[in-house]
């Protein structure tokens, strides 16, 4: 392990979770900020850590799971290096966001039921607040408006090429 790389060990991560819980006084009402902080720590919300949070807050695990799955910004699976968020709010839906989704799925060989791709995570979100640009797609922090299935696939191709060049 190089000293320059900031590598957080599982033990340190766990210690941080404990600190997060302390900071919020282990208060069940603080569940959402706690989950946000935990997600920052792990990049997603691992099942066993959610169970620990449930224990520490004395809240049923089903409730913690419910909150973690309700908000679109929580992820229960590790996400890929690229997170593609496609808006399916009313405006984007009307402007045909679903065909874009289908194209993305087809391109990556995944589906709603089997959404796992190691590099790219597709997420459908309710409204990104950019309805004027509908349909909207966001790749990590970059916003792309007036998306079409073809353009979306092209963006994916670019990512895949870039990554292939890295190895």
């Amino acid at each position, binding site marked *: 392990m190089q000293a320059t790389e900031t590598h957080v*060990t*599982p*033990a340190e991560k*766990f*210690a941080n979770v*404990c600190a997060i819980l302390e900071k919020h006084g282990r208060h069940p009402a603080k569940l959402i900020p706690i989950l946000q902080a935990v997600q920052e720590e792990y990049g997603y919300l*691992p*099942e*066993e*850590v*959610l*169970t*620990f949070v*449930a*224990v*520490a807050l*004395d*809240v*049923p*695990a*089903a*409730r*913690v*799971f*419910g909150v973690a*799955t*309700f908000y*679109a910004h929580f992820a229960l699976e590790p996400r890929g290096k690229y997170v593609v968020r496609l808006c399916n709010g009313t405006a984007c839906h009307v402007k045909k966001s679903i065909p874009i989704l289908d194209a993305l799925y087809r391109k990556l060989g995944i589906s709603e039921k089997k959404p796992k791709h190691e590099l790219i995570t597709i997420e459908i979100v*309710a409204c990104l607040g950019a309805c004027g640009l509908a349909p909207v797609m966001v790749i990590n922090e970059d916003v792309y408006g007036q998306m079409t299935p073809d353009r979306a696939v092209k963006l994916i191709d670019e990512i895949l090429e870039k990554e292939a060049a890295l190895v």
Partner: protein
Amino acid sequence: MTKKPVDNNVYINGRPVAIEGERNLLELIRKAGIDLPTFCYHSDLSVYGACRLCLVDIEGRGIVGSCSTPPEAGMRIKTHTEEIREIRKVSVELLLANHDNNCPTCYKSHNCQLQRIARQLGVEHVRFKSVLDRKPVDVSSPSVTRDPNKCVLCGDCVRVCSEIQEVGAIDFAYRGHQASVLPAFGKDLAEIECVNCGQCTVVCPTGALSPKSEMEEVWKDLTNPDLFVVACVAPAVRVGLGEPFDMEPGTITTGQMVASLKMLGFDQVYDTSFAADLTIFEEGNEFLQRKTKGEKLPQFTSCCPGWVKYAEQYYPELLDKLSTCKSPQQMFGALLKDRLPDLLGVAKEKLRIVSVMPCTAKKYEAKRPEFIHDGVADVDHVITTQELARMIKAAGILFNDLTPESFDMPFGFATGAGVLFGNSGGVTEAVLRFAAEKITGKPLQSFEFKQVRGESGLREAVMEIDGVQLKLAVVSGLKNAKTVAEQVRKGTCEYDIVEVMACPQGCIGGAGQPVSRNPLAKKMRTKGIYDADKMMPLHKSQENIFITECYEKFLGDIGGHKAHHLLHTHYQSRRRLPEEGIALFSGHGDQRLHVDVCLGTNCFLKGGQTILNGLLKHAEESKLENMVDVRASFCFEQCEEGPTVKIGEVTLNHATVDKAVDTLKSELEKQLSGAATAVSGCSAGCSSGK
């Protein structure tokens, strides 16, 4: 009646209706005799306001949900305008479009609210295309079947489980068209903290949650000529069974019930109230001993398997206060499997015991491993009152026309005290009828102890018997049990006996009973049980001569060796979730020592986290990364002895940081020297070297 002032009225469809403390418009409208459709309203639960069926039009305010609007004097409301009718229909049609509509084969078909409301509203076709995304049905639990394809997301189950039972086993998850109600992480019901009370199946308006059925297994036994099949019927069944046959709730149907069981082909029909009388001997005696010694008080009752599992999961440190008596069902099973082969000359392997219970948790109880010996269960099958009614109908038996028959002897003989077990407060009253005579040595003047009767889910009574003061608590609904258990935990509770039933108002309100839309049903069944007691010739368990005989000829002393073996049991702390743990520290050595530190609720509260941090620190400082794996785990089911740490093969109870670090060191040494022997043994080519 005094005339109400004019301004206290709400005008419902133009007709005045006086406000009399109703909490919301819906109650007022229903009082006025209008049955507005609802999915998500239950008077015992909080208001959720999601189904949008209870809509009304308030003059000047527009359309609102009546369940969440308090009545105000002078309001003018309409309950079925054209617009409201349309909204309601659309709501129901949307549900139907997202529903597995195979009604004829659905368990809930006869009392499905979705069906009823669709018909009531005159929904004749669904204008939306089906969007049902079929999900697997969860049949893992012995008590409750969950079919997500029939859920209408009313949340009734979620609220009953958290508000009445304080379990919270199921909850809403996901959103949009993925929204569902399910256990944490989508796990199976059998794996989680669900206590099998089945109350969620009572409130669920559709077939999404229903009691797990065991009718087929029972039919198979009944139709197998080689088997000798015995029915044991719980007290509460007799006052509920009439309802599916259009009788009033609370009608005492004992005679017809026995007759129908005989017609179904049961070889003997016994009364579980007999076993309840037997329980009183054992439990009453146990109580008197504890009271005399002043130990293990309060004595918690143990006849409700929902409560027992709850206590095992949430109150491990109180388990020694639970009566060690098996429930009447399990006492009966054990006794009959032991006695009947002799008494009736039936080979034990041909004997089948079928319980008929008002309860879904009894199904789970019968399957607990401690009640199964060499693959043979003490109780082979458990069917509910609902299932018995269905079997009677399936056999074409005209229940209402049956000539009453009586239970078989001797195990069909019971006193009124045994029958009382069907009511909340019944076990307590039966114990009092027993204990009072034992304390005073004199026969009771009156056998009724009305102080312990009532409807509230948490009642107390104090009484004095011959200078001995007894403080009692009668609890139903696990939320109320939690209240008392917390007091006991804090040491602020002075009760002697705490009776706990998981279901509101006790077994008569069990989830195996027919689902009634009559708001008075439970009250009427309760009365039915008290009436049945009055009608019995004997009222005190100690007067049950067949039980006395059973002790004389067979069981020996009350609480004696044989009795203990057959009639008592033990409890163990139980984890709530199957989650394994969080890997915190691990490297690459091939022979790493596994260290698990419990961070389950109990150990967490007792300082598990400090121990974990201590061990991690030690492991890091001593550079053990290739020698140990450290995990945070969730509950080893040894909570009474917590905090618990497992290091290799060693389990440390009441662990401290120092103890844990020392054990880690010594286990590592052992492992190292062990590895050395193994290597040297191997290189010497000798397998027997040690």
